[in-house]
């Protein structure tokens, strides 16, 4: 037994039954199993088990988010210095970014963690690792200007209403991080929309690419309008644009996607479906444009991929296995519809220039319905197969 193992074991005495801290046993348990694997043995078949556990799965999602976090920190600082007209030194960008982003993450984890612990203590179950992902996701989809108290209120709503009232991780209907953001978006629209939210400098106003196109109205041309506002395909792809903290860089999202797909943590069908749905609808609009149609119609479809939070949402949030579909065909349908809805909301709904959050939440609500029809089809195919066997046996 190592020194640390002994120390933790000693600490555990205070959390045992009958001791004053007994109620907080889940906190001790979380710390204990964070440091050391539980070492529990199987008591019935299967006697051997895969080395993977949910801690590792969730840790890998967090690792997959690291490129977005790094890019988010850098870009937040970069946008600040750009707005102030200061020199864009790397170190200064990182420092400025950390100064803005770190408190948001800290508050998200602290407030979210508080509710997790509370529910674990009341319900007497172990603290689920899901909140490691929820906390970080929630922080990364906040605008850099967000007041910290709103982060705390948002994640509290997301964790409690989005997850815990359904029974905790594994039982939730909606993605809790998106519930947080949707709540904040509708409760505090001033801080979550408009042109002042996306660069962390007081009073500085710059429209996001989607807002630029939304404002361009009828008859405009999309690409020139974007270029006039200083947005090119490449700077949107690399992520040097204003936006929510973690969502701006498509490149960083793709790095995370590569990691999640190589390790098999995320399901590729959802991501592929999202991409195809978005490109398909984008293409349809592109070719049906007329001289008087919305400027959005003239946007080349692949530009949709790098704009707004699409890459981030489809890679890290639509793929949430609990709130998306649980059948393979269902995952395709889910993805395709998310992609389609993203474009439809972006283009046709002037009130919400960004459609990713709403599209995913909307499809979360419909995922069980999609699954229902896929399962019914499966059952019909099953009974047809069985009937075929019965027919054969009858002929014999």
């Amino acid at each position: 037994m190592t020194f640390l193992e002994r120390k933790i074991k000693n600490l555990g005495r205070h959390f045992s039954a009958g001791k004053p801290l007994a109620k907080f046993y889940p906190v001790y348990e979380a710390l204990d199993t964070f440091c050391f694997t539980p070492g529990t043995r199987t008591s019935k078949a299967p006697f051997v088990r895969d080395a993977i556990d949910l801690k590792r799965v969730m840790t890998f999602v967090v690792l997959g988010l690291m490129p977005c976090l790094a890019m988010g920190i850098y870009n937040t600082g970069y946008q600040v210095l750009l707005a102030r007209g200061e020199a864009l030194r790397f170190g200064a960008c990182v420092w400025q970014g950390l100064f803005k982003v770190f408190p948001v993450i800290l508050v998200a984890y602290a407030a979210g963690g508080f509710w997790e612990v509370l529910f674990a203590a009341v319900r007497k179950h172990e603290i689920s690792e899901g909140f490691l992902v929820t906390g970080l996701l929630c922080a990364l989809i906040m605008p850099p200007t967000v007041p910290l108290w709103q982060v705390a209120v948002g994640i509290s709503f997301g964790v409690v209403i989005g997850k815990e009232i359904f029974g905790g991780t594994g039982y939730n209907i909606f993605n809790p991080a998106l519930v947080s953001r949707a709540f904040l978006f509708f409760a505090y629209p001033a801080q979550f929309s408009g042109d002042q939210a996306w660069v962390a400098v007081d009073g500085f106003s710059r429209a996001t690419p989607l807002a630029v196109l939304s404002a361009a109205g009828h008859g405009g041309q999309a690409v020139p309008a974007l270029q006039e506002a200083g947005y090119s395909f490449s700077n949107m792809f690399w992520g040097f644009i204003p936006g929510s903290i973690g969502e701006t860089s498509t490149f960083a999202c793709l790095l995370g996607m590569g990691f999640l797909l190589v390790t098999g943590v995320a399901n590729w069908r959802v991501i592929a479906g999202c991409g195809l749905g978005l490109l398909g609808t984008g293409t349809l609009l592109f070719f049906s444009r007329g001289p008087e149609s919305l400027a959005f119609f003239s946007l080349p479809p692949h530009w949709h991929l790098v704009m707004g939070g699409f890459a981030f949402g489809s890679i890290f949030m639509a793929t949430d296995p609990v709130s998306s579909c649980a059948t393979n065909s269902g995952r395709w349908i889910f993805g395709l519809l998310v992609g389609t809805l993203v474009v439809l909301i972006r283009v046709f709904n002037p009130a919400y220039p960004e459609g990713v959050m709403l599209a995913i939440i909307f499809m979360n609500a419909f995922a069980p319905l999609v699954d229902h029809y896929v399962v019914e089809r499966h059952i019909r195919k099953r009974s047809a197969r069985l009937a075929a066997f019965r027919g054969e046996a009858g002929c014999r």
Partner: protein
Amino acid sequence: MIAVFFAGLRMNIIQINKGRDIPLSGAAERKKVLCALPPVVAVQPPDFYGLRLIPVVKPGDSVQVGSPLLEHKDDRRVKIVSPASGAVADIIRGDKRALLAITVRCDGKQSALSFPKTPAAEVKHLAPDAVIGQMLSAGVWPCVRQRPFAKIAEPGSRPKSIFVQAHMTDPLSPDLDFVLEGQEARFHAGLEILKRLTPGTVFVCCPPSARSRAIQEASGVSVVGFAGPHPAGNVSTFIHHLDPVQKGDVVWYIGAEDVCRIADLFLEGRFNPRRTVAVTGEGALSRVYGQTVLGAPIRHLLTGALLESSRYISGSVLRGTDVGLDGYVCFYDQQVTVLPLGGKREFLGWLRPGWNKYSFSRTFLSSLPRRGTEALFSLDTDRHGGQRAIVLNHLYDGYVALDVLTYFLVRAIVSGDLEEAQRLGLLECADEDFALCAFACPSKFDVGGVIREGLKLIETEG
């Protein structure tokens, strides 16, 4: 050679693509070793799923091979008999007086009760009722099990087909083709007798590489090879692909070695208690195929220093029973697995690269390609993590060789919707078919346990 070639052509092969083999180290050498008769053997009522057994002997009673020890309360014709001659040593009971085992101290003579003999040429003319009657009275009947519910067959039912399991794909499982070598005549006679019991087909399900004459020269039956990873060798897989069970159907299945046991009953007029058990697993020093009797003590099969701290499993790691060093091999098991106990706590396990940690997922470095002996892993009984609600619901379907949506099946059972569970195919399943799901699940969810519960509920509630 040519005969083998042609016989090979005759075999239908079904390719199973789903599932996966666990590369566990510690396979048994292909060597049969005749074990001495153990000093004591046991008959364990929990092995006989579906029977309510009551003892018909008292400690001290002398018994012969084939003497009844237990009877099924609901149908007294179904008996469990002694695999050895000697005296009843003990009747072991557990909680709530549940019967756990009857042990018999062997006298070494193996004197056997005698039953009517039938000449080999005559067995194909036996009446089905006569066959069943003799199997019941000699205690061979429990070798025959049925689907749905994976319980002992009901003597009154008529199966639409019978499956002979000559293929197992569990980790380190015995090569039944090898076990059957040298038992051709008995095996073929046993198949003839089984053919009397069904109006349908007798399927012999074997590895595609089966070379034994017992399988190659089997006639009048349908020989089908099942290729692919585990669970290609599960009974449910055979049945699902050849003659699936529907509501109201019954099929029977029986192990290959038990087919020989049936033949011995009719040809030689006695209960043959012989059982070949493969000794496997890292923890066993000498790993061979031991030829012993049913219900042999685990200790008797193992040689050399035995660690109290190892895990002694009757059966495979995926579906066996933890019987301990002082336990006995279960009735249907043809394998003993000795595993290191494991359970050492590791610092920051969730972050380790894990070169030596086996996982179906690609989240450990061990999933990089390996060669030779490196490709095998030594696994212990560490559960590797705490139990959680199911999160990664896309994992299960890749490991089940049946046409079922595992996650939805589990959900239907847990929510008590048995009708939906049956529509999703629960009747085709047994808990063992989901062992790989439970193995792979990061939430350590007991998938097989839920399936077993569901089957039990349907059986009792109809």
